């Protein structure tokens, strides 16, 4: 865990707001963050049925400026960057030479020469090292980690509840699009993106730290009585798992490649060159790599990260994430297992405190939001 020089946890601009709302605070990624306000299950339900408000200011935000950003970033990542259009957001993965993941990230192209790069909180220091170590001409890097806030509103009512405070037409903003627009309570236009980590519709607002409390309070003041709930990292983790979204450190690590994580769609082998191209091509062509599978437990015993997984009585891998999945009414999880054990419908066993419990491999996501 990263901490500042004195070893103490950092706080986001919304820290006092969280305490006033009765949040339970936990250390996460070097910050003191709300894990829950009332109940993980209640907050989860709010996001699935109405909307929830999240403080994600612990996430790393880097500003990348210059004509060389696209080309520079493409060499370090698996997805394409240079062909993104202004106003577009795109998921991507920085890798090491072996194809293992440094981090999974989102690039937001704000205009021709300015990009916002959002990295995981727990990887922010490492990622700053990665981007500054890469030789670049025509690329200027600014680390805004901890200096700018990030507020997300997620859930089917997000457009309705956010629109009154925003100049841009949110309904017209497509999924994975971003815009700089005026928001009530901010001095300058801020970046709003239709992105998230919950499997629901929603928006992320990137704003100066000293304006975060004003915007947070404004959004809750009117909408809380209609059912907008402040939501913590506990609910966020359940929501992302149900939506089949990887969490760095679990489904992807320096040792687990994006191919293994089931993210082949994000790897563009037609790029002329990128850091792990050869390693990932070799892994793809060999085809015998352990991979992430989604699984559903039989019965009430939750699978937890690290539990051993068996196929036909033999050790086949281990659980990487596991939780009760309220939207599917089952215990769900991911496991890193041998290829044969990852096939849809495969019958597995998960060892929990010395007892093996049956589980079945299913295609992810576990939960898909209803079409509007």
């Amino acid at each position, binding site marked *: 865990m990263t901490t500042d020089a004195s070893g103490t946890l950092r706080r986001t601009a919304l820290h006092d707001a969280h305490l006033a709302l009765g949040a339970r605070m936990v250390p996460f990624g070097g910050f003191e963050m709300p*894990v*829950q306000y009332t*109940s*993980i*299950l209640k907050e989860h339900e709010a996001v699935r049925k109405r909307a929830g408000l999240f403080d994600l200011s612990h996430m790393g935000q880097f500003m990348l400026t210059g004509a060389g950003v696209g080309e520079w970033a493409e060499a370090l990542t698996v997805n394409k960057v240079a062909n993104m259009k202004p106003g577009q957001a795109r998921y991507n993965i920085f890798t090491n030479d072996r194809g293992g993941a440094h981090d999974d990230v989102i690039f937001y192209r704000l205009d021709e020469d300015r990009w916002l790069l959002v990295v995981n909180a727990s990887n922010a220091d490492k990622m700053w090292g990665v981007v500054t170590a890469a030789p670049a001409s025509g690329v200027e890097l600014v680390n805004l980690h901890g200096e700018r806030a990030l507020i997300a509103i997620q859930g089917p009512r997000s457009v309705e509840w956010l629109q009154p405070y925003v100049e841009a037409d949110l309904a017209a903003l497509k999924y994975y699009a971003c815009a700089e627009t005026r928001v009530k309570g901010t001095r300058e236009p801020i970046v709003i993106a239709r992105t998230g980590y919950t499997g629901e519709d929603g928006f992320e607002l990137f704003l100066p730290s000293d304006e975060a409390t004003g915007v947070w309070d404004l959004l809750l003041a009117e909408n809380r009585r209609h059912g907008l709930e402040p939501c913590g990292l*506990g609910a966020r*983790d*359940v929501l992302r798992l149900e939506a089949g979204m990887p969490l760095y450190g679990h489904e992807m690590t320096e040792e687990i490649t994006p191919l293994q994580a089931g993210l082949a769609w994000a790897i563009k082998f037609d790029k002329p060159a990128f850091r792990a191209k050869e390693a990932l091509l070799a892994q793809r062509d060999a085809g015998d790599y352990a991979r992430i599978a989604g699984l559903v437990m039989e019965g*009430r*015993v*939750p699978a*937890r990260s690290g539990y051993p997984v068996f196929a036909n009585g033999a050790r086949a891998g281990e659980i990487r994430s596991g*939780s*009760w999945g309220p939207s599917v009414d089952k*215990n769900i999880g991911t496991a890193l297992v041998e290829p044969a054990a990852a096939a849809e419908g495969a019958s597995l066993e998960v060892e929990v*405190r010395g007892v093996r419990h049956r589980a079945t491999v299913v295609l992810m996501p576990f939960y898909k939001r209803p079409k509007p």
Partner: protein
Amino acid sequence: MMTEMANGVPAGLLYSKEHEWVKLDGDVATVGITDYAQSSLGDIVYVEMPRMGATITQFDSIGVVESVKAVSDIFTPVGGEIVGTNGELDSDPASVNSDPYGQGWFYKVKLNDMSQTANLLTPEQYEQLIAES
């Protein structure tokens, strides 16, 4: 209606430092976790307990209670033979949150030694414990 101390600690029960409660009826004790414990753990999704007839020893870890986020040991506040378990928790583990001293009970133990109750806390002592934590 149970009489309550401050902090919602019911009178008439005994408590452990690990936040379990014990309700004595002759030499049979009903065991559960306190309101303080359920609130700290968050939404309970699973409780694993010894089988009927199993013999357990006071303060041993004899099962687990799982919230959405975490697995926690159950340190039994009393030892003896398991003579009842709350099967309803399989389908409704949330009753531990909503009614920790009632429907959310865990198991019943026939005590092998009544003197072990001297190792437990009174409601006043337990109230002080959680006030200090």
